[in-house]
């Protein structure tokens, strides 16, 4: 189904006007618990996904962000490798931050957004724009922050979610949290599996080799040793086992298994206006790729990171200053990487100041020393001015980087890594306006990014593929959003949100739009609740994307809608059971976000949500 942008805007216009009577924010700019994200990003756009959005999600992080952010996702078929394009940048220019730690793969610099189960975290924030000073490599287009929260002084809470639906898709999430005055414990398990054998609309074929089974385990624990000492422990392990879908023109019989395990130990000391933290983390990633899943031949790659981090912050009346020393030692190995080692030492200074109640600015500086490449000095400056109690202006500029990965530097085999690579660097600026009053908010952000030395794999004179710092690009665009919430009475409430993003991503030499970056993306959601019943509408429009760098071939744009019907079945003694029927791809749209890789037809999922 193809919908023109015009009719779409008319359609959305009607909804927005209707909902304008009174409003709220689905994704609002909030003060978040991650101390740095809260304290040192005042002039930066940070959106936190609401809890209701997280609980409604029935799939991967891709699906959550697809309908709730401006990010475009390239998925090699549903559930397969999924890479984001944030503000027109690539997958390795988007950082994923797990409880404050950058967890992008050391091997390819990316995070596959289908290897994160959103139910396993308590809070997801989308921080737009550059953040290398605070979060390191890849925080160029933006960063996604996954946080687990510790609930002290909390009674025992359990949540069990069970789902079943089309293509034998079944999922299970169980989360339990308990806290005393001095301790907090959270445990979670997640599992999603599917035969994923959806029809390729318009053909007689189906997704033959796309079944997957993903599981995760999470644990977080905190203990207050005294009023000034806090110990925290976070852990997550993800296990993925996926058959990799073929394309319309090629069958596949391959399989991909991956493990991501992350552990973080943190000690915090509070003393008057001084906060000290010591963090120690261990990250482990490994993949196995079976070209032929019936054979026991596979290729693999793995990496281990040890991170030690010392963080000292002083809070003053109108200001705060934070210094961070960070030491990482990373080892990589695999079929095509003999043995790679990296030692990285980073120094960061963050400063924020409120000269007046309505005015805030921040300055961040960072320099890394690394054994296998030269890292640039980077900075970020941001400011926020509250013009009135409802209207604010933000501004920021930053320099950011993306480092060469182990694959880029050390690959051997069918191609060759290049040890002379330098990091990609980019400078950018953003101007934002936010208007918010009770039940209504709107915002508009304009951005510009200029990047150079982008790493591209190209063959040399003798036909050997190797990465080089060759490309220069610039991106500019706007992101806008209107959100509304209205409670008619105790039985009736409505929430709605519409966002629109315009993105140009241009290769400097050819002046062509980068491939797989849509110029237009619109998302819309509408939730209406009446007593125990709820109806939720989620939709998006993706503009066309080019699939070749000369912009001669393209994928046409598409409109997608999901519809959910929710019913609160019981509320007895503090426990509740909510039933949800979800229809994905309501209009049976035949669409692809990567060429020749069809996405699912209309499908139905049933969810049961127990809270006790």
């Amino acid at each position, binding site marked *: 189904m193809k919908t023109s942008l015009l009719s779409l805007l008319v359609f959305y216009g009607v909804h927005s006007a209707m909902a304008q009577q009174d409003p709220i924010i689905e994704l609002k700019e909030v003060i978040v618990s991650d101390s740095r994200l809260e304290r040192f990003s005042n002039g930066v756009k940070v959106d936190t996904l609401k809890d209701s959005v997280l609980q409604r999600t029935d799939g991967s992080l891709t699906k959550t962000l697809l309908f709730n952010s401006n990010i475009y996702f390239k998925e*090699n078929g549903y559930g397969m490798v999924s890479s984001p394009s944030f503000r027109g940048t690539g997958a390795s220019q988007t950082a994923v931050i797990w409880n404050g730690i950058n967890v992008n793969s050391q091997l390819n610099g990316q995070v596959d957004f289908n290897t994160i189960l959103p139910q396993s975290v308590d809070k997801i924030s989308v921080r737009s724009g550059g953040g290398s000073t605070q979060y390191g490599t890849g925080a160029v287009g933006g960063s996604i922050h996954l946080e687990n929260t510790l609930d002290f002084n909390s009674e025992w809470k359990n949540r069990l979610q069970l789902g079943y639906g089309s293509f034998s898709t079944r999922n299970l999430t169980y989360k339990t949290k308990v806290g005393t005055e001095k301790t907090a414990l959270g445990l979670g398990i997640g599992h999603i599996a599917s035969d994923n054998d959806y029809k390729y609309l318009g053909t007689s074929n189906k997704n033959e080799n796309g079944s997957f089974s993903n599981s995760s385990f999470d644990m977080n624990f905190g203990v207050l040793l005294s009023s000034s000492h806090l110990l925290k422990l976070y852990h997550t392990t993800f296990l993925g086992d996926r058959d990799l879908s073929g*394309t*319309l*023109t*090629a*069958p596949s019989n391959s399989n991909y298994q991956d493990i991501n395990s992350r552990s973080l130990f943190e000690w915090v000391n509070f003393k008057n206006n001084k906060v000290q933290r010591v963090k120690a983390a261990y990250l482990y990633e490994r993949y196995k790729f079976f*070209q*032929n899943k019936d*054979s026991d*031949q596979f*290729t693999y790659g793995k990496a281990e990171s040890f991170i030690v981090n010392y963080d000292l912050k002083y809070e003053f009346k109108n200001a705060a200053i934070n210094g961070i020393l960070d030491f990482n030692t990373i080892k990589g190995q695999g*079929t095509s990487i003999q043995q790679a080692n990296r030692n990285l030492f980073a120094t960061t200074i963050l400063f924020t100041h409120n000269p007046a109640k309505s005015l805030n600015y921040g300055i961040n500086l960072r320099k890394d020393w690394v054994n296998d490449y030269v890292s640039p000095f980077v900075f970020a400056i941001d400011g926020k001015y509250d013009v009135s109690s409802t209207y604010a202006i933000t501004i920021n500029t930053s320099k950011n980087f993306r480092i060469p990965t182990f694959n880029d530097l050390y690959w*051997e*085999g*069918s*191609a*060759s*890594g290049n040890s002379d690579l330098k990091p990609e660097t980019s400078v950018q600026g953003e101007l934002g306006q936010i208007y918010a009053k009770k039940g209504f908010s709107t915002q508009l952000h304009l951005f510009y990014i200029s990047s150079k030395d982008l790493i*591209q794999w*190209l*063959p040399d*004179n*003798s*036909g*050997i593929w*190797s990465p080089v710092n060759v490309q220069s690009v610039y991106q500019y665009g706007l992101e806008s959003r209107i959100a509304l919430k209205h409670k008619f009475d105790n039985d009736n409430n409505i929430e709605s949100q519409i966002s629109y993003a315009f993105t140009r991503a241009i290769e400097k030499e050819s002046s062509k739009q980068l*491939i797989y970056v849509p110029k237009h993306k619109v998302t819309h959601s509408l939730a209406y609740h009446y007593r125990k019943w709820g109806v939720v509408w989620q939709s998006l429009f993706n503009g066309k994307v080019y*699939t*070749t*760098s*000369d912009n*001669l*071939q*393209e*994928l*046409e744009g598409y409109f997608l809608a999901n519809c959910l019907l929710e019913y609160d079945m019981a509320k007895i003694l503090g426990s509740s059971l909510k039933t949800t029927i979800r229809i994905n791809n309501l209009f049976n749209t035949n669409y*692809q976000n*990567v*060429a*020749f*890789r069809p996405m699912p037809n209309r499908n139905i999922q049933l969810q049961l949500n127990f809270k006790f």
Partner: protein
Amino acid sequence: MKIKNVVLALALGFLFTACNKEDDDAMAPMGTYDNGILVSNEGPFSNGTGTVSFISEDLTTIENSIFNAVNNADLGNVVQSMGFTDEYAYIVANVSNTLTIVDRYSFESQAIISQGLNNPRYFLYANGKGYVTNWGDPNDVTDDFVAIINLETNSVSGTIPVDFGPEKIIVHDNNIYVAHQGGYGQNNSISVIDSQTNEVVTTILVADVPNSMQVDSNGNLWVLCGGKPSYTQDETAGALLKINTGSNIVEKTLAFDTTEHPNFLELDGSKLYYFLNGGIYSLDTSDTGLPSQSDMQDLNFYTMVVDDGKLYGTDAKDFASNGSLIIYDLDSKEQLGTFNVGIIPGGIYFN
């Protein structure tokens, strides 16, 4: 999604057909795509389809995606190469594991073989049968084979297990020579298959990475070996070898420097051509040493062919957009034409 291309191709096809009908030559063309150059384009790596482009012999017209235009279908992922009989063209789609058979002059699809191939590379017609080299799993050194194609039933009728990484394939008399370049690794041998028994009769040891072969008018097999590239940590020199096809013995070895990795051996008359570090070099089959001077420099070819004093080279550009075919006169070194073809043009053939 490629509707623009299809429309364009159809429009060009129509014009070209119209042209052809006007000039009635003595030799009537055997189809729309008679008398011209065919370029096979791999297409995007991980998804999508390869295509075939046609350029008329007089270099005045070009038509892209001719298979799609004629058959309203895709050829498959990574169109690696084409092979020919008098009547038909056999198009190898590497990732799709298919061999598409078309009338070589009309490009009308005849059949598709999708069973029995695994990572197919090159097609050869010999002794009434077809032979297709297959890598199997490119990391597995034991599952490589040559598929035997029954050209009556258009199906794989048997397989010949061979050494690791069979790539280029050429025939002389009853002997089929298969160069083992080596999949994702490197290898250094030539298998000799008897086309009557379909058995490997002998294996000839050559230098590392035999990447191209030619048979000269005296029946000598010339094998160009690229040597192991530097990233293997075991860099070896390229070599040009002359093999006596009667005895299957290496008669002459012309060695390159260790850091020299030549490719694309071509034969035009008695002259051999190859590509090295952006230059074109030539020597006569009777020469006793390698040339020290290049004929042309500063070229960047994804593949090249020499025919009748002309050099045909492709530029794959950034590998994510349409490439081009550039034609040079080897005497004057002048460009005779540049044509925008499909994505990653990897094969050049004459129809």
